[in-house]
């Protein structure tokens, strides 16, 4: 389903030699998640009189996760590796560039931090700008202008139109 030239790897059968370290880390991560869940499950108090207590389903889920994680680890150790998903807008042969998603994430968290002190419009405009920039738009004034307009229109439609409360921040009293 990902790359037409490489058939998907069935579980337990390594198609290519060599161990993929990132895949191994992910598989071990799943095992770790299962283990943490199991520990957490044993700390849930019982509560009221009930036939099936609050621990039963968490127990099933954590043991299941542990089991599946182990299977995945075995798969990876035998040479299995994941093929990154192919999206319409992605280039399967390009070297992944982690700086762009990091930039988006940074912009998003910065925007979220500014949302309450400076207001919704500034916060979301920051987010808009960083995503646009990360996607290769370099005309900064244009991008900033569009960002502010989109944020402002969204703000007005939601607060005026639907009566939602979004933080006004700097615009307090202006709009």
């Amino acid at each position, binding site marked *: 389903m990902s790359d037409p030239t490489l058939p998907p790897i069935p579980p337990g059968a390594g198609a290519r030699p060599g161990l993929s370290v990132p895949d191994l880390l992910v598989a071990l991560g799943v095992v770790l998640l299962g283990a943490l869940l199991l520990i957490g499950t044993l700390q849930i108090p019982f*509560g*009221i*009189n009930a036939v099936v207590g609050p621990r039963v389903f968490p127990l099933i889920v954590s043991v299941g996760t542990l089991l599946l994680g182990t299977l995945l680890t075995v798969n990876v150790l035998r040479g299995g590796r994941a093929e990154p998903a192919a999206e319409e807008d992605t280039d399967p042969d390009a070297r992944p560039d982690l700086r762009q998603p990091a930039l988006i994430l940074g912009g998003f968290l910065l925007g979220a931090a500014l949302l309450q002190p400076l207001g919704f419009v500034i916060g979301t405009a920051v987010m808009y700008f960083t995503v646009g920039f990360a996607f290769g738009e370099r005309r900064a004034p244009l991008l900033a202008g569009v960002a502010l307009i989109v944020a402002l229109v969204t703000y*007005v*439609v939601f607060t*005026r*139109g*639907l*009566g939602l*409360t979004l933080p006004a921040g700097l615009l307090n009293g202006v709009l």
Partner: protein
Amino acid sequence: MNVKTAALALSALLSTAAPAAAQNLNLRVMAPASPGGGWDQTSRAIQTVMQDEGIAKPVQVFNVPGAGGTIGLAQLYNSKGDGNLLMTMGLVMVGAIQTNSSKVDLSRVTPIARLTGEYEVIVVPASSPYKTLGDLATAWKANNALAFAGGSAGGTDHMLVGLFAKAAGVDTKKMNYVPFSGGGETLAAVLGNQVAAGVAGYGEFEAQIKAGKLRALGISAPRAQAGIPVPTMKSQGFNVDLANWRGIVAPPGISGSQKATLVAAMDKLHASKAWKDTLKTRNWTDLYMSGSKFDVFLKLEAVRTREILKDIGLVK
């Protein structure tokens, strides 16, 4: 453009609230729940009446949902000394503070008034062999596993079943309470004959009781209610009195005169005809109580709630 026209139509709608002689009291009312729920509806009813009657203007309602209202309560603590802020709350919050082991409680907030409430009823399917509360209690004592359906664990419905168990002499730790997430699932379970009895606010069962599909065995009111043809639990020898009440509190640390202003505003609200009409159309029972009486009530209710929740095993 479409967005614009709809936005315009809506904002036109939103501003239909009639202007009245505005006073200098402006208020913000926090509904510590999502739009549409009981606390939200109460807050918005207060907003409408206060603005229409000119008791305060503007009145702004905002929602801070989460964790049985305790997230909103924590936020109220952050606005210490703000004399223009109110929060809607009620019995459910008193319980949630206990069950969620919330870091903040109601001991330091400024109580303003208790406004409305609803009594709880115990119902059985029309085909049930139990004709009175006594029948149900006798059967329950013989078989502790009799299933009672109601809202989520620790809520008002659960408390009522706990109180009824105590009054009937059934071990509260052994009772078989089946919690549903609301949304009418309790009603469905009773109508579908899947449980022995169901508990909820009277309003939730009213239509089915009147249509004869459910039999109401008892209501948790202290005395018979006008227009509700259901015998009280007390009149049948079970000393249970529980209202799912809703009230208003202000942040901690407001001055005596600020509190007096807010209490006076609520008194005015309660005395207005618009409020009486609202109670009538919404079927809310008037449980008004303000000032020091409400202070004492809130303290007693916290103690009583803790005791019930301990009995049913939710609080250590």
